[in-house]
């Protein structure tokens, strides 16, 4: 696989991760690093372990072997979860009647682990953080709307706002554009590009859509239980992994977002 030039410590370091589910190997000895400024697409076919790897990075699943280092700390000692943002897969599981406004949803990310009632300055800074996050995704006008009344694309923008409300250093997204129409997908990728280029957030996006390799992203990691490719997106389309996983038996059609 292609090497990645480094001149700084990785924000996320995945070290020899292996994971089995019901005895079946899902991830086999996967290692990769995510650096500041990276926009990494985590590609692979269904069942390749992409979402599993993302959940291991977030501490939602425990690997059987290997370790994750987040911002220089082993994951078991890591406590600064406000520095890691997470956008789950399009929230088809979100109750459309849940009585939470857009502002309340974004403010959830600002829940302090040691919770307590907000005092004046804490409440003001919380409101400012919500305003800032909604502005980043161009959703300020929807603050008082109920989350279930929004379209799928709008909901995903709110979940990005929630994920970036704490100004994380890394943003992890799990197939965030599933079920989102093409127009909103374009807006979505523009927002992510802005977060990566202007806010300096590293982004790791699990996706099926190899079309996003054309724009925005800087790195590709291709998984099929083990890491088949990790390197620049320019080299990816010429790589054997690309041919094996995406070209063989398929007719390739390119499109732009």
């Amino acid at each position, binding site marked *: 696989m292609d090497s990645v030039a480094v001149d700084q410590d990785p924000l996320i370091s995945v070290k020899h991760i292996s994971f089995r589910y019901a005895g079946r190997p899902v991830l086999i000895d996967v290692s990769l690093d995510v650096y500041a400024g990276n926009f990494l697409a985590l590609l692979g076919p269904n069942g390749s372990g992409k979402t599993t790897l993302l959940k291991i990075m977030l501490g*939602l699943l425990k690997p059987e072997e290997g370790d994750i280092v987040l911002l220089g700390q082993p994951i078991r000692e890591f406590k600064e*979860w*406000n520095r890691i943002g997470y956008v*789950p897969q399009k929230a088809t599981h979100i109750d459309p009647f849940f009585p939470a*406004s857009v502002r*309340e949803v974004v403010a*959830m990310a600002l829940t302090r*682990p040691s919770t307590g009632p907000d005092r004046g300055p804490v409440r003001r800074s919380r409101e400012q953080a919500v305003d800032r996050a909604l502005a980043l995704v161009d959703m300020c006008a929807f603050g008082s709307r109920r989350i279930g009344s929004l379209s799928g694309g709008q909901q995903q923008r709110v979940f990005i706002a929630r994920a970036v409300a704490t100004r994380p250093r890394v943003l992890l997204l799990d197939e965030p554009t599933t079920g989102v129409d093409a127009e909103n997908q374009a807006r979505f990728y523009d927002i992510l590009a802005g977060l990566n280029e202007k806010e300096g957030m590293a982004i790791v996006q699990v996706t099926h859509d190899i079309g996003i390799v054309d724009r925005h992203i800087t790195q590709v990691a291709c998984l099929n239980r083990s890491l088949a490719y990790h390197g620049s997106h320019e080299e990816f389309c010429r790589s054997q992994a690309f041919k094996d996983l995406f070209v063989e038996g398929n007719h390739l059609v390119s499109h732009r977002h």
Partner: protein
Amino acid sequence: MENLLSYGFLQRALLAGAFIGLACALLGVFLVLRKDAMVGHGLSHVTFAGVALGLFLKLMPLGMALVTALVAALGLMKLKEKGGLYGDTALGIISSVGLAVGVLLATLSHSFNVSLFNYLFGEILAISGLEVWLSLGLAVVVLAAVLLNYRGLLFLTFDPESARASGIKTSRLETLVAVLSAVTIVLGIKVVGILLVAALLVIPAAAGLQLARQFRQALILAALASFLSVAGGILGAFFFDLPASAAIVLLSFVLFGAAFITRRLRGAG
């Protein structure tokens, strides 16, 4: 009305009922949104076993009810997490066994009498001064726990996976919800009895959720529905010589119906 409210038993009933109803409503909103509305039914059946055990051993029935409810609530949580059972399956098992144990103990101790029936159907109009203070104290604990953990509970209820990913100790909050559910169920027994206490958890919350556009609104509206149900039910029971528990629950259903119709007329969104 002023003379009416000078009756000590009505003052105690309204005071205890209002606080207990408030605790039930606040917790009920979280339970309904988590699709755990049937937890109230399951735990109330288990408290029947606790009450029967207390009568059998001639110990404090409500104290025994609290112990059995806590054990059942925490056991239910563990069964779902580690036992690989669906939530409603675990609830069905615990609920049925609780009821069966209660029937067995009540039969063995020859306790099918007025005392047991008061626990089954509630006796808010006969609540003692000491019981009012106990109820107030426990209700304040429930209220404080919900308010102090409000944001974490909201996040956990809305999106449990993202809540965990953000560093919130979701297992601690789940335990808190289990404990609060047990305590609130036992509190509610005094108001509407074992058979109807689940209604006090669910119906005012459901009424509030019909009209709320924000979560805070849902809590406030649920609390309001609960207060109106309890106060109206108690006064209605006094005026019309009706069983207070049934009056409270039926009034809460009327309020739910009104909220449901209002929502339909207003249109969703």
